[in-house]
């Protein structure tokens, strides 16, 4: 048995952990740490500031999060899902503005590294449902929670997921759920500088 619900502000800790861990994509590389020289704890505090702003239409709006709990009410997994373009601006622009604002100087001092990472940016299609930061807590892996959550989130919808290409387990699960690879974008220098956990990003899509 399980229960799926919308996130609340009491879930900030889990959501911040999910964002940080999903960005690592199963590796030890924390991209935001490499990009801006911030620790995971510092980054978590920056995320809390962004959550408080409740900026809709992007993955760091806590209200866009769905949480799946066990029958004991324990959080097992979560993901962010939103309709691209619903806030009148791309989610990429909204997220970037939020992050740039809370990082201040640290943002502007690292634009060369950001430019490299932006080379694997894949545009999101307007009016499609986006899934991001899919994360299952370690003690709840292999129990089908994420499958249930994705099925619930995308039922009858056109949806997109972006991930690092070498995250084989995640890719396999999304394929099982009907997603197919649409676009692949690579930048070899990203791996050399360890800015992301792999040099290629892919977008997978599913029609509702």
């Amino acid at each position, binding site marked *: 048995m399980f229960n799926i619900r919308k996130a609340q502000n009491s879930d900030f800790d889990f959501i911040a952990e999910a964002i940080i861990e999903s960005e690592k994509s199963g590796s030890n590389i924390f991209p935001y740490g490499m990009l801006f020289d911030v620790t995971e704890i510092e980054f978590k505090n920056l995320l809390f500031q962004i959550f408080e*702003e409740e*900026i809709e239409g992007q993955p760091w709006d806590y209200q866009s999060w769905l949480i799946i709990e066990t029958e004991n009410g324990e959080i097992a997994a979560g993901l962010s899902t939103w309709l691209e373009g619903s*806030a*009148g*601006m*791309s989610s*990429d*622009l*909204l*997220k*970037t*503005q*939020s992050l*740039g*604002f*809370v990082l201040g100087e640290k*943002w*502007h001092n690292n*634009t060369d590294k*950001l*430019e490299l990472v*932006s080379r694997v*940016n894949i545009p999101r299609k307007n009016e499609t449902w986006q899934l991001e930061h899919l994360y299952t807590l370690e003690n709840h892996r292999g129990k089908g929670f994420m499958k249930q959550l994705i099925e619930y989130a995308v039922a009858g919808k056109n949806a997109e997921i972006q991930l690092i290409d070498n995250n084989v387990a995640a890719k396999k699960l999304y394929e099982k759920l009907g997603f197919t690879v649409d676009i692949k974008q690579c930048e070899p220098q990203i791996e050399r500088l360890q800015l992301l956990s792999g040099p290629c990003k892919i977008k997978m899509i599913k029609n509702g």
Partner: protein
Amino acid sequence: MDREIIKNDLKGIFEEVVSTPNIEITETLNAELVDRWDSLTHLTMIAKVEEFYDIKFKLKELIGMKNVGDMMNLIISKKSA
């Protein structure tokens, strides 16, 4: 402040940031309509505009800024405050 003068100021800033000459600045212009105006160049643009006018935007103001017209309104209200 005169809107035409602001438009001219922004033209110079935008063209420098996106390295594109002869951008026609209209009040409805936004990131989707200009090549190389992505999320990175957008933030650089904002920083340059803040520096040029000696103003500071709040996060909520940045998020609400959907086009050049919105940016001009904010510049005018901040400079006349």
